[in-house]
């Protein structure tokens, strides 16, 4: 069913690259003439080859700038090795992950300063590793509470962050989100506060239930994975692994949500019936994607704005606001998203720097 043993893919590659001798070329010609099927096989290979050759790629980061970063690193070997040896002492590395792809000029190694700052401040639980976020850094500030110290990690538009908590739980924050957490958890419970959208991977510990306060709800879990979305005063939770227990402050209602289900909080303060959902679809943000399913344009626009640090979209034409959009967008290129919206929804897009108007 596949190509003849002697005419394999490597051979075809050599043919298209013109790396074969006279004898092999004649052999190939003979094979090609043998049947229509062979011709078809070769032409489908050519299409594949063309796809491979024309596969999209980003532009090369500017050589001079990249070189300067390397140079500064190799010239400061000495000082870095001191900082590196210090950072080994840290058991809770925390990464701030660059939220999207761009070719902008950025500075690496700023994180070294962050580490130094953390040491000076005497916060031994974590350090920040600044990973080329093109925007302002996510900020950690201290809120004084007796005994246990609470910290707040917040992300702005165009930013994402991942937090490793002292119990081994990992929380990924999408843009425009806020997490308040203690430097350590006490013996019988683990409690944090959250706003925005985040993915929670809670380290199993039956003796210490994990509680998340968010928009007048309390989520209680022992060890699971789930996504919380609290946008525009609307709260929803989607469970990826295990189960969670939800509690509403307003109505004292309690519900259990299990793997593959989503529950949202209604205005009345009670929970919706669990919906079966495609969990992965909801988690597109973690893959640098925006996923819309019959989403009204005005809400979609807010999500788009969150992906970039300095983008402001105004819907000028009111009739557009309730148009719905469906589709998966790569957040790599704002221009691509805009041009697809423009073509498929007949929207006139007017871009003036960071201000974008939908007309």
């Amino acid at each position, binding site marked *: 069913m*596949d190509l003849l043993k002697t005419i*394999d*893919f*490597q051979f075809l*590659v050599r043919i298209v690259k013109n790396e074969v001798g006279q004898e092999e070329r004649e052999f190939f010609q003979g094979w090609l003439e043998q049947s229509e099927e062979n011709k078809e096989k070769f032409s*489908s*290979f050519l*299409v*594949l080859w063309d*796809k*491979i050759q*024309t*596969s*999209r*790629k*980003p532009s*090369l*980061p500017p*050589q001079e700038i*990249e*070189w300067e*970063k*390397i*140079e500064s*690193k*190799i*010239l400061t*070997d000495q000082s870095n090795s001191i900082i590196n040896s210090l950072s080994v002492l840290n058991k809770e590395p925390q990464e701030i992950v*660059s939220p999207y*792809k*761009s*070719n902008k000029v950025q500075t*690496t190694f700023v994180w070294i300063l962050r580490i130094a700052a953390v040491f000076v401040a005497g916060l031994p639980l974590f350090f920040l590793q600044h*990973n*080329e976020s093109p925007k302002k850094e996510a900020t950690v500030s201290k809120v004084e509470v007796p005994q246990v110290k609470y910290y707040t990690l917040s992300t702005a538009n165009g930013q994402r962050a991942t937090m490793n908590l002292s119990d081994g739980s990992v929380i*990924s924050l999408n843009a425009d989100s806020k997490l308040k957490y203690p430097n350590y958890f006490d013996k019988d419970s683990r409690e944090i506060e959250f706003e925005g959208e985040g993915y929670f991977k809670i380290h199993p510990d039956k003796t210490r239930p994990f509680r998340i306060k968010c928009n007048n709800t309390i989520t209680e879990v022992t060890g699971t994975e789930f996504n919380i979305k609290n946008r525009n005063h609307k709260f929803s939770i989607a469970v990826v692994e295990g189960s969670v227990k939800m509690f509403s402050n307003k109505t004292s209602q309690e519900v259990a949500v299990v793997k593959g289900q989503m529950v949202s909080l209604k205005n009345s303060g009670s929970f919706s019936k669990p919906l079966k959902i*495609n969990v*992965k*679809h909801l*988690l*597109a943000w*973690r*893959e640098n*994607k925006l996923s819309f399913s019959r989403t009204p344009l005005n809400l979609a626009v807010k999500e788009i704005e969150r992906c970039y640090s300095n983008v402001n979209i105004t819907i000028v034409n009111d009739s557009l606001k309730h148009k719905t959009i*469906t*589709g*998966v*967008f*790569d957040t*790599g290129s704002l221009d*691509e998203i805009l041009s*697809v919206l423009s073509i*498929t929804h007949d929207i006139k897009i007017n871009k003036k720097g960071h201000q974008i108007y939908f007309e």
Partner: protein
Amino acid sequence: MLVVDEKSLPELIEEIRNNNTTAFKEFFSRYQSGIYYFLFRYTSDPEAAKDLTQETFIKFWNHKESINNDLAPKAYLYKIARNLALNYIDRKPPFSSFEENESVLIKLSNNPQLDYERLFLLDECQKAINLLPERCKATFILSVYEGLHYDEIAEVLNVSLQTVKNQMNKAFTVLRKHMSKYID
């Protein structure tokens, strides 16, 4: 007429080993593109590729003493890049099944607009490359995109020549299977 005297690779390496950063800059400018695009194809992430490219060259510099004349410097450089990329992939949360989800979405949607958006935004070829097993992926990228010869690839990956050949055929078979809907 100005004749640009381009140094041979062994000359360049010799100078690098003597701590000559100018020579190292020349070395970087020759291989930045190759390493960057290898890492981009491998990780599907331009930002990660950029970071890992820097790390690759820094690591090369830090281990310059251990480059001897037996080991081709180019293969050594790609070897470092692949190892760093492997570590990077290991650290990433395991969310590779998004593609599956998307194809489900397309099938269910029966929506030409959505199909249009998908084709417009996503490069099916890179996604298919992403689905290849690690060694197979590395082999394919090094050969097709980086133009390395099979014996060089064998050195980078520490495998036999025959393994490289097998991996190449496997890569094409998988790619053709995953891209057949765009080809036929």
